[in-house]
């Protein structure tokens, strides 16, 4: 079984096919950015991107994503640690408090901005409408996503793996 994870191709032991995807990422690969929080797909803390679309993975098995492209929060920044412009916008806007929703929120916003780099605040609200946050009241998260949108208007950055020239 093959997975494309964070830009790398990965061969997965068939024995792990039935394993919960979130456990596979967290336990086998130590990619703990996706969080266990409700186990029923209600909160969005486990969101990653599958073929550029946000997916709550707590109810998915490894076999469900075989052959697909996965992006977790650990794959968004550049290898040298430079934050993706969207991540930097979250930091700059004060969009982070406890941080438990942050990975899912950032990835959901990333997928959204690639499709709509000129969003209204209402459209941003709808895009993150299924990711719960109990700390921030969403306002500074929306500020961050709105501020980061400009970085997505450059086609070069549209694959999400390249930062715009600073």
């Amino acid at each position, binding site marked *: 079984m093959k997975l494309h994870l964070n830009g790398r191709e990965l061969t997965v032991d068939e024995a792990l096919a039935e394993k919960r995807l979130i456990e596979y990422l967290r336990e086998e690969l130590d990619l703990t950015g996706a969080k266990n929080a409700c186990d029923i797909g209600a909160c969005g803390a486990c969101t990653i991107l599958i073929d550029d679309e946000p997916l709550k993975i707590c109810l998915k098995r490894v076999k469900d994503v075989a052959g697909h492209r996965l992006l977790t929060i650990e794959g968004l920044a550049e290898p040298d640690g430079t934050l993706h412009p969207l991540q930097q916008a979250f930091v700059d*806007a*004060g969009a982070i408090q*406890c941080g438990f929703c942050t990975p899912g929120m950032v990835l959901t916003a990333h997928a959204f901005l690639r499709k709509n780099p000129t969003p209204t605040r209402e459209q941003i609200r709808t895009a993150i409408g299924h990711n719960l946050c109990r700390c*921030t009241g969403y306002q500074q998260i929306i500020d961050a996503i709105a501020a980061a949108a400009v970085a997505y208007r450059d086609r070069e950055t549209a694959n999400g793996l390249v930062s715009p020239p600073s």
Partner: protein
Amino acid sequence: MPPAFPANWRNDAHAKVTGRTKYTDDLKFPRLLHAVPVYADEVHARLRAVETAAAAAAPGVVRVLTARDVPGANRVGQIIADFRIFADDKIRYHGDVVAVVVAETRDQAIHAGRLVRVDTVPLAAVLDPEVALRDEVLVHEERGTNLINTHRVRRGDPEAGFREAAFVIEHDFRTPFIEHAYLEPEVAVAVPRPDGVFEIHGSMQHPFSTRRFVAACLGCPLPQVEVVGTPMGGGFGGKDDTAAIVCARTALAARLLGRPVKTMYQRGWSIRESYKRHPYRVHYRMGVSAAGLITAVECRIVADGGAYCSVTPWVTWRSTVQCCGPYVVPHVHCDTLGVYTNNVVTGAMRGFGSPQMNFVVEQMVEIAAARAGLSGIEFRRRNMVRQGSVTITGQRLDNHTVSMGEVLEAVLKEIDYERKLSRCSHGHSDAAEFYGIGLAMSYRGVSLGAEGVDLCAAILNVQADGTVVLDLGVHENGQGAESAMVILCAGELGLEPDQVRCQRASTSTIPDSGTTVASRGTIMGGGAVVLAARELKRKLAAAVAETLRCAPAEVRFGDGRLHGAAGASLSFLEAVQAVWRQRERPHACAVFRAPSVSWDEETGQGDAYFTWVYGCQAVELAVHKQTGKVRLLGAVAAHDVGRAINPGMVAGQFYGGMVMGLGYALHEEVKLKDGRITNTNLNTYRLPRATDVPEMTALIIENPDPASPSGAKSIGEPTNEIMAPAVANALFHATGRRHFSLPMRPAPPWPEPASTEGAP
């Protein structure tokens, strides 16, 4: 020049936004075992036996623990030690844990948990606090009563006050159980160390109370338990007792099995077992003079404390002290009762007894205003506390800036309140929706007040390279407490952000400074940090004053340097080295003691809190005439925070608190059927979503507090205590209907537009 902290600076932002922050469930330990709780489907029952043999024989199971395995105390509590680590004599609520199954994998433990059987004798359950007060069914027989506590206020002569009144209004209010809904459920890891210490990593907001519970359970001295601060995925007051008990059960398993053990809660267990915000029933009478002044208040407050005491006496004390809101009332008679029932336990939640009372008071004043022929704003202006006012507990407000009027006027202006008020529908609109605007305001006693001993310590330990390690008594709950403390420390010492680092908290190294609750983190922790920094500065200045050709008191700190006379200066590092050369340590420890408070439980009189904060919030909304659906259009808040240390994070507290308040107003309610919670996950417990909430404006008002070394006061809870009544008042102005219980779900048919508020 102030240090170069970017706006919204946080010491943990980079790790959190890249997913590298390690919360408790993210930590890896070799040979880790997994523990899960087991519940009995009973609400009130005598527990005769817990049969564990079948579970113990299940695949992967290492051990099944019950009350009999506890070597120390099985009953713990911050006020009354009645909270069972494992149910022993009885099951008192549906979330009581009868056993813990420990297995090689979590799935094995969950599976085996279903094999545990309990032998019980069902008892009649008491689920209504008013019924519980009859003591026909006792939750704790040994106490002889279901009454947990009472509080009172006796001020003036209420009978005379009501005689003076031109009219009296009287209403009953109810509020529901509320779930904190921190996104990270309870989780704990206990590691038996070779030195005999049990190291606890957990999602809890009070490391020292956790250590007390764990040590009591294990029957060991406090230093044999080391609770390590671990990033926490939200708390909101909810990760104290229950979270500490999860740590205690986990530690017990680690001790008996000699291996690291993790307990990771599913959401359903978390909602079933963890304590909630208290539901209140309030009967409220208010007398008002012809001049529109409140002459008297009489109220009876009944709080459902659930099966165990937790902090019910403290929560209800704040409700009592603040039972008349920010208004001067000469005659008051208030009785407050905390009551045991077989419902889910209730305890601390953001607001701590104030959201319930403000929902009552801030509607009563509007009802009274209408009856008096005044606007709600004018009525508030006539009755609210001002500089030098005396509160209902006899405290003169003269040691800080009483900014009630300032925050009110700020909100009125920002949202253009009085013009918009004239546009409200009052149940009559030609459009598809009614329009309404409303507001509410409050004052709030800061920190613990007369609830407890209030002090906080900080230690600054300067390293050989001139950087500073900060040991703190306040806990990072996700709110940015550490960041605020670093900013304060660096600011005092004239250093850059990367020259000060918070040491990872551990109960073995940091000073016990009480719990990070009561919105006391910034005022108490900040006070300690500022005092410690000043102590360190005295040490450094004394060592270099001669070199800088000035008196020690004249040495100034800034730009990473110490400045003296005529341009003479030394780097911070050079000053530190001068201290070392004098065989001194560049080290400082300081304790900030809250100014004294007083309380007489008999009369309910005293200087309840050493300072107060003032806040006002307004909201605009539309209500669909056919469906009753509420659309929030905007909200504005003004809070006097004393001084904003990290303004972006202060604004974040505003927004988060306001939205939690909107949830309280319109969506949230833990539903119980026969003592069993029916909405045990986030699909049925309805939290506000991004699409539910409006754009918000945060007005930070700053009147530095003389009692606070940093000038800062509080912000966490004030933001969460007045949005529900603001929504209630806006709904009234939109539809003409009052809502006396939460959550508010307006629906047609609407009242006749002509109906006047306050009519009996």
